[in-house]
């Protein structure tokens, strides 16, 4: 957090210096990057990935983030602004995969190439899609827990927001993994709306009904952290997994409080999305889609994820798209 003003200053400096070079500079493509909110650490990491990629390739990034988290009208009006400002390319995460379709069509109509990252937009033409598979992440993270439990025991699921595509896919991954381990009993699946407090309170309530809970499958790290607090408060032990690979989850894994987290790879999504946009402008080949292989961070391999995102650098394009 204390590095934030520096980042701002650096971003401003890059933007200012690039602006002073003007259109005369050979590279220095202007890339507009849209993310969903300022509150989720995941998107902060995506933005840092985009910044790192732009710095490496000599392009300039401007970030568009709704001040009200995930606000559809705000992102729509930001699209209107961008269509007038005409950046060379756009890297785009829709705040809502259905509702933002009209906005994407506007960008298409303006003839600006758009790369879709993180959440797949329902409508519109894109250079490519860059993201992780929520289903695969749910599957491999749950498998990791169930295998560690020795294929037996009682588990509970803390779901995200019902009806959201992310939550639905992660839940499908969880339940498909559970089918592979028929001796594991699913005691309950309750929504915690991706929120820490709700994850904590739902876990507290579930512990009252179920005297023996061996594992917790949480659809994101914040709810997993809430569940860990609930378990500690009741002096009970269970293996907990979450998804997203946040710094907080890595710290909990290091401290032995959390078993694992599915790596949503925000930094790489930012890197590859921005690189793809720049490559498209430079007429370099870009695959139809880049979906990273789902991987799990645990105590054996957390080191790379432990590096603060503002100190990481994007891998080479060829290495990055291998997944």
């Amino acid at each position: 957090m204390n590095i934030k003003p520096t980042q701002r200053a650096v971003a401003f400096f890059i933007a200012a210096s690039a602006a002073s070079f003007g259109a005369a500079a050979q590279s220095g493509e202007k890339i507009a990057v849209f993310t969903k909110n300022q509150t989720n650490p995941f998107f902060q990491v995506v933005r840092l990935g985009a910044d790192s990629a732009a710095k490496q390739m000599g392009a300039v990034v401007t970030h568009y983030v709704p001040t009200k988290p995930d606000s559809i009208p705000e992102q729509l009006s930001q699209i209107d602004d961008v269509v007038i400002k005409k950046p060379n390319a756009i890297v785009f995460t829709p705040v809502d995969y259905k509702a933002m379709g009209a906005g994407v069509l506007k960008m298409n109509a303006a003839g600006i190439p758009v790369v879709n990252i993180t959440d797949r937009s329902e409508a519109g033409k894109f250079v490519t899609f860059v993201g992780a598979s929520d289903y695969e992440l749910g599957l491999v993270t749950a498998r990791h827990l169930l295998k560690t439990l020795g294929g037996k025991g009682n588990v509970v699921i803390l779901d995200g927001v019902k009806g959201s595509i992310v939550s639905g896919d992660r839940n499908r991954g969880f339940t498909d993994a559970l089918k592979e381990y028929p001796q594991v009993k699913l005691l309950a699946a309750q929504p915690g709306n991706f929120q820490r407090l709700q994850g904590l309170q739902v876990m507290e309530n579930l512990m009252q009904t179920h005297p023996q809970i061996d594992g917790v499958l949480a659809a994101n790290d914040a709810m997993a952290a809430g569940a860990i607090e609930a378990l500690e408060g009741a002096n009970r032990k269970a293996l907990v997994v979450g998804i997203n690979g946040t710094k907080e989850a890595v710290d909990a894994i290091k401290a032995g409080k959390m078993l694992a987290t599915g790596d949503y790879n925000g930094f790489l999504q930012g890197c590859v999305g921005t690189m793809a946009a720049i490559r498209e402008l430079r007429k370099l080949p870009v695959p139809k889609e880049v979906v990273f292989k789902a991987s799990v961070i645990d105590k054996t391999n957390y080191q790379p994820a432990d590096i603060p995102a503002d100190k990481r650098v994007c891998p080479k394009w060829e290495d990055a798209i291998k997944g």
Partner: protein
Amino acid sequence: MNTLAQKPGLALPHLSPEQRAVLLRLAVLGLLGLALSLAAPAFLTTGNLLNVLRQASLMFLLASGLTLVILCGGLDLSIGANVALSACLAATAIKGTGSIVLGCAVGAGCGLCIGLLNGLMVTALRIPPFIATYGMLWILHGVTYWYMNGETVHGFPPEFRMLGSGYLAAVPVPVYLMLGVLLAGTVLTQYTTWGQEIYATGANTEAAALSGVPVHARRLAVYALSGLMAGLASLVFLARLNSAEGDMGESLTLQAIAAVLIGGTSLFGGTGTLVGTLIGALILTVVLNGMNQLGISANWQPFITGVIVILSVLSDALTRKRHGS
């Protein structure tokens, strides 16, 4: 309202409408508890009841200050955002200096300052409470998001976490805080002139002013208290969650308003009690607890909350009408 005592045919004629409202809510809570203890065997256990009390205490701490504001005829929509900023500032203060006392002072102080600003906007600038505190909500969100920049601050010393997660004699610490605030608040509102002036201001500001109540000072004070309570609640939330993030207060304001309304405090001011708000918080908490235990999707919780709010306000309106007040 005085007509009540003159109708001997009514049951419980010696009760004021406010006491009647509290009893009605206790009955509803009791029925809910009875139904749940029959349906879910784990409901009526000491462990679960303490669990419910702890969850309700977090909500009550936040809703108690709001109750005063609403009693006084105002509204404070900024409390959730206040919690988020106060908690984030307290979190970084503790992390940065290692001093728990400083952290607590920062959290409570931030809450109080925000409350004072709200109060000044409403009294000195005469901005309607809805607008002033709604604007404040946005300002606080903006400042908090900027300050946190998507980061999470987590991991606090055990002594601090006692405040939210600790036990004293097998009872969670927040429950003592809740009882302390309830006691102090009830004495203040029911048994002091200051408290009666709050009710008078809320019931009819002009009449209160004409009869010599310093209405501006009282209104400023309730907003300050509401802010202070949000600041204190933020410390308990922080200690309970062991973590601060920019959006941590988002869902809290509407829940607190629901607890106040279910508790029988009228949005028009002048009627209501802190005990009612506590029962409101308990009803909301028991509903979630029961749904989790029965395996009903907790997504139905907002729906049920809405139904209870409307029924509760409706029942008060009908009672008052029947008694011709």
